[in-house]
């Protein structure tokens, strides 16, 4: 068991004693909170835009499955499990209209074939409407069982939203992952 796992374990045990979910979330940090808690990342909301299907700079072209956010083969989807928000009125980074993005999430590490680099992907769920029902996708690179929450894609991460009803999942780049 490496240092990180030990650290995770300790944190989990300590934090899990908190009975208030809010106070728990406030202290849980990057491993569960995903992008929402990363100080380097702006947390401004993107409320005023519609969600055109578009590739981001530095990604494979939209016309290839590896670059198409509406495709299960999209490079960011290496550890996703659910309906793709890009098929539901949202995008790889935006929830569909009327749904709320859960601040808690699980994380995957996916290789971007366009630059050959690994990126940390946050699969924030979108919540408050029932199943989208389109583009169901399940990939499990580095996925771990339920007792390893921050690496598990079965968990309903809408647990952190106003309504826990699951609609679809996004795939948001938190940043590049660098080997030591």
């Amino acid at each position: 068991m490496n240092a990180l796992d030990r650290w995770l374990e300790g944190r989990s045990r300590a934090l899990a004693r908190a009975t208030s979910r809010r106070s728990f979330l406030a202290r849980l940090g990057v491993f569960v909170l995903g992008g929402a808690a990363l100080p380097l990342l702006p947390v401004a909301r993107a409320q005023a835009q519609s969600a055109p299907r578009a590739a981001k700079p530095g990604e494979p072209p939209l016309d290839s499955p590896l670059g198409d956010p509406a495709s299960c083969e999209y490079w960011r989807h290496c550890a996703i499990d659910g309906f793709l928000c890009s098929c539901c009125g949202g995008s790889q980074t935006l929830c569909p209209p009327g749904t709320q993005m859960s601040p808690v999430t699980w994380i995957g590490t996916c290789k971007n074939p366009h630059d050959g680099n690994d990126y940390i992907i946050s699969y924030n769920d979108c919540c408050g409407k029932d199943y989208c029902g389109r583009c169901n996708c399940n990939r499990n690179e580095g996925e771990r069982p339920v007792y390893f929450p921050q690496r598990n894609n079965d968990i309903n991460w809408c647990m952190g939203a106003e309504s826990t009803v699951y609609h679809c999942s996004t795939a948001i780049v938190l940043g590049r992952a660098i080997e030591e």
Partner: protein
Amino acid sequence: MRSKALLIAFVLAAAAVADVAPEETGGSAVTPERWGAHAFWASDMLLRRSALFDADSATMLGSVYGGQDLSPVLPLGSAARRELYVASTYYSRRTHGERTDAFVIYDARTLAPVGEVVLPPKKAANGNGVALAALLDDGRFAVVFNQTPASSVSVVDVEERRFVSEIATGGCALVYPAGPRRFGMLCLDGSALAITLAADGSEASRSGSAKFFDAASDPITEKGVRLAPDGGRWLFASFDGMAHEVDFAAQPAPVAKPAWPLVTDSERADGWRIGGHQHLAMHAASGRLYSLMHQGGADTHKQAGTQLWLYDLAQHARERTIEVPNLAASALRDLMELPAGGVLDWLLHAAVPNPGATNILVTPDAEPLLLLSTHEAPVIAVLDARSGELLREVAEPGIAIGLLVAP
């Protein structure tokens, strides 16, 4: 895995030098500023929602979900208020417990609930979902049909967001918008009823037409089409294919024009009939009527259509016939993840029996599209409404598609 796990620890440092820039979380999209002339709602009886699609790009723009009732979820749209309204029945334990009927108000751009009006727990529910609620033309009052089985109508003031009153409607059912503060109903005695609301939403007056159809021997279906964006003119088709045009707004009382046949005697002799769950569509600007037709015997008024017959309403004349494409084969192809237009796709379309179409919609614009669906297969066909050419298909529109509705 160890290295993978370790990677995470360096995300903060990494973010600064990422090739794909770190992205915001927490954002939700909104629907486009203008939905476009080819946007449409497709309801889903199993997901209990209506999804908004753009027929040009065949993409989903968003969705609105309802409660637990049997009826398809049909959002009423207020362009002026940029709101949507969905009347639903809810239970405190989903399928049982305490009942609440609510008229839920959604922001039309964010598709988020922004308010609700609690209704009397009498909301009508049925599997076809046609004419169960309407927003009247001046945009102030909505009416929700009740059937317990006693018929009545609940009136909602969407401006003040309050329930106004319940109006008993005797032997008449369903609600068809027919003017600024008027709606029409169909009655068991073969007549049409029109009710006009006062400025406060209470009943101002009602008037009934003479009997123009026989509910027992040749009833008209509920699946009528409005002949103009506003006003009281609606067209209904009878089981035997007679077209009945009704003006709910006529003074002093609703009037039905003489009925005309959608099928000639020889066509009737060949067994051609109207049928389906949403078997009529109207393109008001060009005065063109679309009717789903099939060959069948008596009591086949819900049977899927194999052809679409296109009429010039003014001339009462049939202009064109459009064959219904095989939606089951297309859905199976999508299910099996086979490429469209491939050999296997061709084989499927040759091998799988064509279930026809149960639901149709024509977009109201100058370059209208014809939308086709069937309860049998989760796919929606997009055709050129004038040529009948199949332009594209909307894959995975849902699981059990109900009605197709223009926003």
